[in-house]
């Protein structure tokens, strides 16, 4: 306590944020649904897909194995689960029980709590991506000659797009039940257009076009190119950026603290 009193400057700026992250992080571990879906599921699928011999075969019409086709799809799947469930549900819960309001009676702004939630989910997503990339390259023989700047840019854009979708759900869902229902309603279309059931390459032309204009389809396309060593084309990048701006705008416009 006395140490705290001495450096009030550090205290004022960053200490509450780190304390909030620590506490919300512990709460996330104690209620691990978000971590299981954000971290466990993709790792599980990586191992399953990597172990199926038929997935080593080259996909007709491409230079890639089926497994390689699925790596960007798994990455986007991680973000879909975080954006639809991992991020909005704790925020809606904290608002529903009055915790956000309780925080807003202290000198610390409740936006710090929101920022802490986002930071925790970025960490979860980051660990997932690391496992998926490193795991697929080092253990399952995927060609590691990525086009790094394009890869990172694609990851950043799709992360912003789907995280802002998560905050948007938190903004408009009045209760945890509605938030979960909205997530479930969006889950299957998003998984479909990301290509988890059938990779987008095998869809009929008009569905491919729709997919290209969803944030998840655009992301898979951009990740695909960069993993094959070429910088993604401009259209999928713009599509992701447009969704990021659009979702953030509505989320900020309609967010309620109580």
């Amino acid at each position, binding site marked *: *306590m006395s140490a*705290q*009193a001495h450096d*009030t400057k550090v*205290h*004022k700026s960053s*200490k*509450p944020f780190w*304390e*909030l992250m620590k*506490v919300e992080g*512990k*709460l996330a571990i*104690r*209620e691990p649904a978000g971590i299981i879906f954000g971290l466990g599921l993709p790792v599980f699928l990586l191992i399953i897909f990597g172990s199926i011999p038929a997935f080593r075969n080259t996909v007709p019409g491409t230079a890639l194995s089926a497994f390689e086709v699925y790596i960007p799809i798994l990455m986007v799947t991680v973000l879909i689960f975080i954006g639809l469930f991992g991020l909005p549900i704790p925020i809606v*819960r*904290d608002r529903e*029980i*009055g*915790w956000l*309001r*309780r925080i*807003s*009676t*202290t*000198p*610390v702004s409740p936006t710090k709590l929101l920022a802490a939630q986002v930071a925790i989910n970025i960490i979860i997503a980051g660990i997932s991506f690391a496992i998926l990339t490193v795991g697929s390259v080092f253990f399952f023989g995927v060609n590691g000659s990525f086009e790094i700047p394009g890869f990172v840019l694609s990851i950043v854009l799709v992360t912003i797009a789907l995280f802002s979708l998560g905050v948007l759900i938190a903004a408009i869902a009045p209760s945890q039940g509605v938030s979960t229902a909205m997530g479930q309603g969006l889950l299957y279309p998003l998984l479909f257009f990301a290509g988890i059931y059938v990779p987008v390459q095998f869809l009929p032309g008009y569905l491919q076009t729709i997919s290209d204009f969803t944030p998840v389809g655009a992301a898979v396309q951009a990740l695909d190119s960069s993993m094959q060593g070429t910088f993604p084309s401009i259209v999928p990048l713009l599509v992701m950026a447009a969704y990021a701006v659009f979702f953030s705008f509505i989320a900020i416009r309609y967010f309620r603290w109580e």
Partner: protein
Amino acid sequence: MISTENLTKKSGEPNEIAEVTNRKRVVNVDHLHKVYGKIVAVDDVSFSIAEGEIFGIIGPNGAGKTTMVECISGLRVPDSGTVTVYNLNPNDDREELRKLVGVQLQESSLPPRIKVVEALELFASFYPDPVVSNDLLESLGIAQKRNARFKQLSGGQKQRLSIALALIGNPKIAILDELTTGLDPDARRETWTLIERVRDRGVTVILVTHYMDEAERLCDRVALINHGKVIALDTPAALAAREGGGVRMQFVPSEPVNDKVLTVLPGVTSVEHRGSRVIVAGSGDLTTRVLYALLKMGVNASDVQVKSGNLEDAFVKLTQTDENTRKQEVDSK
């Protein structure tokens, strides 16, 4: 009937009031007005709170009590009028104000899996000069629950943790909203003792309650709110004495007593008989006078019962009078 103006001015009131009035004012509410849609929650309210007092805000459900304290704590922006807290404006000086004011909210819960000690240390990190969380838990009697999760606590323990969170930042003012709702009688009494200890440390307490026994026991002054207006403001004792219906005394005399002997006594307003019992109603030091008069006549009184008006009686009377006045106003329109 004493009008509201007389009550709020507090002029010519007993010494207790004068003593409170002379102290430094830490909260000033001036012509506060707050509307939700068509509902007027707070209607032109003015009062001020002295440093170190326990100030009660009482009134029926939906009277606007919570909205008033929310304006004081900066959670709501008034439509008009001003609020100052230690000369700060709650909406402009958000951070400074929140360092001075600790708030315990009605119907606000913590994440179910957070531990008691985690919640306290989190809140301690929000303030420049927090109190030591262990000492606070100790004085609140929940130190043994330090590592329990919020959902494992009983209603009383949750409430005490909530009070602890309001006090961890070492506030100068504590706002406590409906703090004993849902507590058992033991827990309520413990909470009351705790509030008195908080006050003894020099903290000004604003207590929102609809329990009159709580207000009577704890508050130095109470503001009675109805339909967003202050309809009375005084010490609980003064309100009870003035509006609570005075004193009623019952006894069984050893031989019949002529009513006139009693009705001439100062302060007596009526004498009734119910079987062998005599019921004397009035105000002031009625009991002593009646007993003395009986003694002089050589009459013994047995089974003596005295009931004086309390804050609850005053509350019921004042709110009903206010309702009737409102009805008449509506009718005459």
